[in-house]
């Protein structure tokens, strides 16, 4: 029989992945995971960090300080759905890391683009430090691997979580399981929380965040959806005391053809605010207004002083961030 004919038969044979095979063997020993945990004073012996080769590797990949213990790194990889005991899971570390991340990312965006509308500001924070972004960072950039199930024999260097059964929505408590994305994000946050505790507080976290989180490119320009651009622009001009905007034709070609192109600039008095092009006058005018509004919202000051530097040294010279009237309300 040729290999080609054998293949369908081979496919029928169920082969459990190694981690699943472990699960089958160790069901008897680990039935107490999701139910009430017995009172323990030390982490389960199966998760001895010194036995894992993955932990020092991760420690080294992230260039963590030698003062950052391997034990904390191991604890950062245990989600609360895998171990309900807060002394041994990453819940507290992740909460700390999340607060720090939200603060540092929010401060970065606020000082870089002080005029951003609130919705886009929030979306930008999520794009840097949301579940999806941190999951991508942990999985693809840092190379954290996931244990199939949190069983006794599992390597302490794997992310441990109780997986959400397929087709079920995540509940409020982690007892019913969580998605890998969510658990991975919590591990990344917990590792950052550990940096705060072991590597000397905020300066180390700031540096780590700058290198790993804020160094990623985010095109804020692409996040806009302005529903009534011409109205919003004229409201903006009225609010700021500028002359009301007028659309003017910069260039055109093939007006009577099926593929006309118009280039329209929107002016306030003699000042060009934005330029747009399109296949119709209406499109070009709308795009010009959208570009003008984007130019307003994406203003970035030359000097960006981060408020967090005063937390490190209260005597340091600090220039307050730029604040104006806020987004335009139609």
């Amino acid at each position: 029989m040729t290999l080609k004919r054998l293949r369908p038969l081979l496919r029928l044979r169920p082969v459990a992945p190694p981690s699943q095979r472990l699960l089958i063997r160790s069901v008897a020993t680990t039935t107490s995971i999701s139910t009430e945990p017995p009172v323990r004073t030390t982490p389960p012996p199966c998760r001895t960090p010194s036995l894992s080769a993955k932990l020092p590797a991760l420690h080294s990949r992230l260039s963590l300080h030698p003062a950052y213990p391997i034990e904390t790194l191991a604890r950062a990889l245990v989600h609360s759905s895998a171990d309900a005991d807060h002394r041994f899971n990453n819940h507290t570390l992740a909460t700390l890391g999340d607060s720090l991340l939200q603060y540092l990312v929010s401060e970065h965006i606020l000082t870089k683009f002080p005029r951003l509308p609130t919705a886009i500001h929030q979306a930008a924070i999520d794009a840097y430090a949301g579940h999806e972004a941190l999951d991508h960072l942990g999985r693809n950039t840092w190379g954290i691997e996931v244990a199939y199930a949190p069983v006794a024999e599992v390597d302490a260097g794997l992310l441990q979580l109780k997986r959400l059964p397929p087709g079920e929505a995540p509940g409020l408590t982690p007892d019913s399981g969580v998605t890998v994305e969510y658990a991975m994000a919590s591990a990344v946050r917990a590792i950052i929380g550990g940096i705060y505790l072991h590597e000397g507080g905020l300066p180390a976290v700031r540096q780590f965040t700058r290198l790993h989180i804020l160094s990623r490119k985010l095109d804020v320009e692409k996040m806009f959806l302005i529903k009534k651009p011409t109205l919003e622009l004229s409201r903006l001009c009225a609010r700021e005391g500028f002359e009301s905007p007028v659309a003017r034709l910069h260039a055109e070609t093939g007006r009577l053809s099926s593929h006309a192109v118009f280039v329209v600039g929107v002016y306030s008095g003699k000042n060009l605010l934005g330029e747009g092009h399109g296949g119709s006058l209406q499109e070009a005018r709308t795009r010009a207004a959208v570009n003008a509004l984007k130019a307003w919202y994406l203003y970035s000051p030359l000097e960006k002083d981060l408020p967090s530097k005063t937390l490190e040294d209260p005597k340091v010279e600090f220039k307050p961030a730029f604040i104006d009237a806020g987004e335009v309300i139609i």
Partner: protein
Amino acid sequence: MAPVPTLLVPRVGPRVFIRTEATVRRLTKKLRLHPHPSFNLTSTSPKGSHIIHNPPSAAPTPYVTPSLFLPALDARRKLSPPILPAEPTPAPTEAALADSKPVVAVAEKPLPPPLSQPYEKTYHLTPEDFDEIRRLRVEDPVKWSANALARKFNVSPLVIGIAAPAGAERWSAKEKELEKVKSRWGKKRTLAREMRTRRKEEWFKGE
């Protein structure tokens, strides 16, 4: 038997496009572009090594803030100050007029033509007019549509929409009418309309 005329004999072998000298010459001439004037060294260009900044033409980026949008304290505002409307100057005194030099008019570059003629808002509607608009709208929403009322009172339909919005009944009637029209569309037109709507969404994202 008369010989077969040679013109009717089918040609054997593939038809190959032969690039003649004339074609090559024409193409080469087309491709032979002169360098942009900014690359030519003139007597005014710097003597030492310098950078020629001549980027290809591209759509302007919104990350460059127009000078009017810069806050008053921003240093970039000094580089290209916005053109602000001239404030009304007080009438010059006789002494000042005697001392003044003749003003040389500077020819300004005219602005491009506006798409629609800019106009001043008149705010000519009285409270009685608004009452009348609301009354007519309730009386016969079909006859007195936003456009009809706008023509009657010489305002834009937007004003009518704010002053006397059409009721829910009128909206649902209009929607039903639209659904009826849409039901007559075939596959091609439905798809074309859908694509047009999607393309229009891109306008508002600026993509």
